[in-house]
């Protein structure tokens, strides 16, 4: 499971980095989204991967913490998802405004001369 997740995060990050270096604003947005997915997966991975373990202690005793998943990264990921969703929405609005004002979707607001 670890190797699959690691490869997945790696592919997401590399495509994301490639895309945010592209000149069009839409590519940048998609790149940022991919990067934020990768980061979310990474946070989960940092809480150790564990199958079939609940993040909530069962009733009537603490027990062995090794049998439970770490709840904290899950809370962090929830927060991170909400924040990155909101900022991406904000960025989209700005992109559309920029498209309207400059007439191009180039990040610098002007086309290169060909």
């Amino acid at each position: 499971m670890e190797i699959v997740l690691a490869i997945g995060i790696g592919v997401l990050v590399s495509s994301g980095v490639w895309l945010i270096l592209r000149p069009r604003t839409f590519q940048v947005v998609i790149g940022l989204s991919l990067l934020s997915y990768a980061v979310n997966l990474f946070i989960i991975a940092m809480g150790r991967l564990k199958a079939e373990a609940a993040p909530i202690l069962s009733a009537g005793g603490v027990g062995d913490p090794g049998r439970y998943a770490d709840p904290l990264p899950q809370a962090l990921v929830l927060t991170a998802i909400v924040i990155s969703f909101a900022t991406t929405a904000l960025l989209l609005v700005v992109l559309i405004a920029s498209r309207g004002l400059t007439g191009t979707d180039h990040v610098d607001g002007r086309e290169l001369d060909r």
Partner: protein
Amino acid sequence: MIAPVAVPLFASAMMLVLGGDRRTLNATLNVASVVVLVAIAIALLRGADASPDGLLGVYRLGDWPAPFAIVLVVDRLTAMMLLLTSVLASATLIFSLARWHRVGAHFHSLFQLLLMGINGAFLTGDLFNLFVFFEVLLAASYGLALHGSGTVRVTTGMHYIIVNLVASLLFLIGVSLIYGVTGTLNMADLATRIPAIRAEDRALLEAGAAVLGIAFLTKAGMWPMCFWLPRTYAAAPPPVAALFAILTKVGVYIILRLWLLLFGDHAGASAHFGGELLLIGGMATIVFGAIGCLASQDMARLAAYSVLVSSGTVLSAIAMGPVDMTAGALYYLVSSTLGLAALFLLIELIERGREPGADLLAVTRELYGEEDELDDAKGTGIAIPASIAALGGAFICCTLVISGLPPLSGFVAKFALLTAALNSQPDSIPIAAWIFLVILILSGLATLIATTRAGIHALWASPDRAIPSVRLVEIIPIVALILLCAAQTLQAGPFMRYAQAAAGSLYTPHDYLRGVLGAENVIQNTRREPR
């Protein structure tokens, strides 16, 4: 203690509920909230200074014990930064009341949210909570940077948003790496656990800290992560740009706090991790900023490059320093932030004669300022020379503060820094101190040349006729900021004592740890042997 976060939150919520269109009401609420914030910050400052260990107290959200829940901590450094923020906010707010708050929607609520984010970032004692407050202040600053719209503002605002989103992702990666290694996010708890990290995990921890550091340094504007800054600051509306002068200082504050807490002398094998890079980067930032000052041909961009010089100076001073140096850096931080904010506000007044419409401001500022239209006070009545004289006098004062010439506070700050650098070792002067000395003095010279050139160009050598209509409400905040710099000079002794105490407690964080975690936890954790 939670009031610096709660007051702006409630104020902005009230504004949104009452409707963003009722500007008078919103402005009243905003002013009231800022005044309350100043009062709270003064109370916290006095409290923190009066308490024996410099730690006013720890606020536990939900009253959970410390390593498990989020804590807010007020010590001397936090109280100082809170006061600086609220003073700056009141000055820029009063300035914006003259005109700028009308050029776009929701100025007042965004302003309050920005204050909430900044105050929260200063107060929090938890890494992930810090991320949340950072996002709050960044989201508000995106809105404010775009305030007033216009092509230039939207384009640079977009660059600003993208750069900061990437930095936020790096922030998250760093936080989760640190969590993965240490299993905690509480800063004080981290500080006690880092010396006991196993050797094979240490590389992972340091990688996490480095990624985290890059995120903060992007916000602090350290070279080579600073190329977004001058354009954004120059294009932002002037009151917003003046308030943004504190945003880079938020990054600097976090570096100062976390670096000394997590990687101070007591951190075992990781002590002073990354210090050399911070020093080199800080110095490179000063050089880049100074060259940028000399090269910039309009005043807003000149001020934006001065922001870089200022944060570079603070960063390299933090990296060099024993306690004296850090105290000097704190003094410099306050004085340069006040001076830069005054300069940003002043530039708008000086350049006002050139541009009639608010939307044109940003566009024409991109061009070389050939069309100076300021009046040279010949036969146009008595009011105009007064306003020119006021602007000119204020400009000279700003120049003195920023370039570090006597008699204002910039000189005292640089003097304190240089004295500390040269006296850091009893018998010899380290080579880094020499380089720092040369760079600091040359950067002062460069700023002086650049500002003088711009000042002569704008205020003296302008044959065209146009009356810069300056209202009293706009000049008062500038004068107040400059007077604060003057007061900082007059009260340099008490202020330096306070800064020394703040820096001292940063270097010996036992009081901080004990305050946050409770005495028994600290002892238990520090006794834990490396496994």
